[in-house]
């Protein structure tokens, strides 16, 4: 780990000011991603701005929904009574991720901004356009089992590793940020980016901005939802493919459908056309297969991850079946019903 200075602001304004004054500085919240990357010299901040004492640790009612402070831990969020009751999809997705210890430390804001788990991104001895723009992408033609099948570019095929973000995408959350130019709200779908020709940028957060909160809208999906995560071992492993599905049904007719995929792209993947296709249809396997086919029509395999296309197809269908039946995937009994 490199040597760095350390400051601990007491207000959001001080934190923003400290970051604005020093381009080499980084915020630190739970530290579970940043310290890991610093140990590999992938991140070498000149200064750490410890934001853990800022007053951003509450979950509050807001416009019929909830406002989650950026410092609420992943564990506190997943087990909050209001979240469990009104946004069980979010609770489930968080509990599918990492370990109890990590969820106790990790923050809401940090979860959104965690970096990819691409092996080459972590290995400073190899070229990587995300870490060092212009050096090339080692994953293309390399070991890319965990890489993207949707929305990748010829510059970068990394995936976003978060589970929580997949649920937030399906729930259509809003990210509240504060920065040198003032406060603004970013719809979740516009928060993370596709790699394009600028893979070093994971998100549309502007330089100097801090996440202060995540807003959940009033619409909840309390019955017909699931978070289905498929991975190499049953716990404490990142998703190969995950599905957040949320439906509103009128009898067997789908009134509203939300579907977001994790582990397949540089951001939680949604497809408006597929969701529109589901709306008004009967909740049958055939309907779900048509949606899966539509989503995966544009999927492209890399050298060693072609299996993920079929895996994603089956996960989408099974996820929608679980949601329609109102039998969400358990995150402790891992049998997939």
């Amino acid at each position, binding site marked *: 780990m490199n040597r760095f*200075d350390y400051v*601990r602001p*007491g207000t959001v304004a001080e934190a923003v000011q400290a970051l604005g004054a020093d381009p080499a500085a980084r915020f630190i919240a739970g530290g579970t991603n940043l*310290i890991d990357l610093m140990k590999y010299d992938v991140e070498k901040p*000149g200064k750490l701005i410890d934001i853990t004492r800022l007053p951003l640790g509450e979950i509050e009612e807001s416009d019929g929904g909830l406002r989650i402070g950026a410092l609420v831990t992943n564990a506190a969020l997943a087990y909050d009574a209001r979240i469990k009751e009104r946004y069980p999809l979010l609770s489930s997705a968080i509990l599918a991720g990492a370990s*109890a*210890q*990590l969820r106790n*430390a990790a923050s809401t804001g940090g979860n959104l901004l965690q970096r990819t788990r691409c092996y080459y991104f972590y290995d400073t001895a190899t070229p990587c356009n995300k870490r060092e723009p212009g050096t090339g992408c080692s994953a293309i033609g390399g070991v890319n089992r965990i890489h993207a099948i949707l929305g990748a570019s010829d510059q970068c095929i990394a995936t976003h590793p978060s589970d929580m973000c997949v649920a937030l995408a399906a729930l259509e959350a809003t990210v509240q940020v504060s920065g040198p130019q003032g406060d603004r709200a970013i719809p979740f779908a516009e928060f993370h980016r596709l790699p394009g020709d600028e893979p070093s940028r994971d998100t549309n957060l502007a330089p100097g901005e801090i996440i202060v909160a995540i807003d959940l809208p009033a619409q909840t999906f309390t019955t017909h939802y699931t978070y289905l995560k498929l991975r190499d071992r049953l*716990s404490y492993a990142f998703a190969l493919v995950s599905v957040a599905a949320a439906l509103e049904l009128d009898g067997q007719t789908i009134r509203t459908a939300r579907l977001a995929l994790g582990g397949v792209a540089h951001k939680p993947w949604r497809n408006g056309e597929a969701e529109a296709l589901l709306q008004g249809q009967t909740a049958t396997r055939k309907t779900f297969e048509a949606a899966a086919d539509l989503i995966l029509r544009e999927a492209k395999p890399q050298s060693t991850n072609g299996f993920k296309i079929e895996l994603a197809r089956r996960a989408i269908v099974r996820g929608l079946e679980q949601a329609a039946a109102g039998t969400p995937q358990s995150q402790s009994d891992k049998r997939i019903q």
Partner: protein
Amino acid sequence: MLIDSGSPGAVGTIGITLTINGERRELQVAPWTTLLDLLRERLDLTGTKKGCDHGQCGACTVLVNGTRINSCLTLAVMKDGAEITTVEGLAGLGQREGKNSLHPIQEAFVEHDAFQCGYCTPGQLCSSVGLMNEGHAKTRDEIREAMSGNICRCGAYTNIVDAIEEVMHQGDAR
């Protein structure tokens, strides 16, 4: 600013206060010292183990204000003011009249043969106490899932779950 380590690039140290296993300590630490390295390298509390140093094994699990975290992925300065319990302090937490000096979970680990080489054990013990403090896991499946952040290369998992189940049902968690 609550704390400012000072000038750019100065290899400064920062004064922090930690209560470790019940003992209050004033310490000067460099900001890049992880809580794990502080415990092991500076304070000779080598019970807490370094397995991977990257959050992937749980050997470094300690309790911070009663909550279990990976001490390898947090900086000591960030925990200024906190109460830390390591495996060395568990017995103190568990001490009751008329009992011997181990924490009930330590006794149960011995009773159930919940280790072989013992390297993961300090982390498993702290994690077990953290799990019981949290109070979310009730069934065997839930205990297994909630302990997934502690890897045991010897594969003592079944006996570890037995030990936790027993203590949980005694209601002996602190």
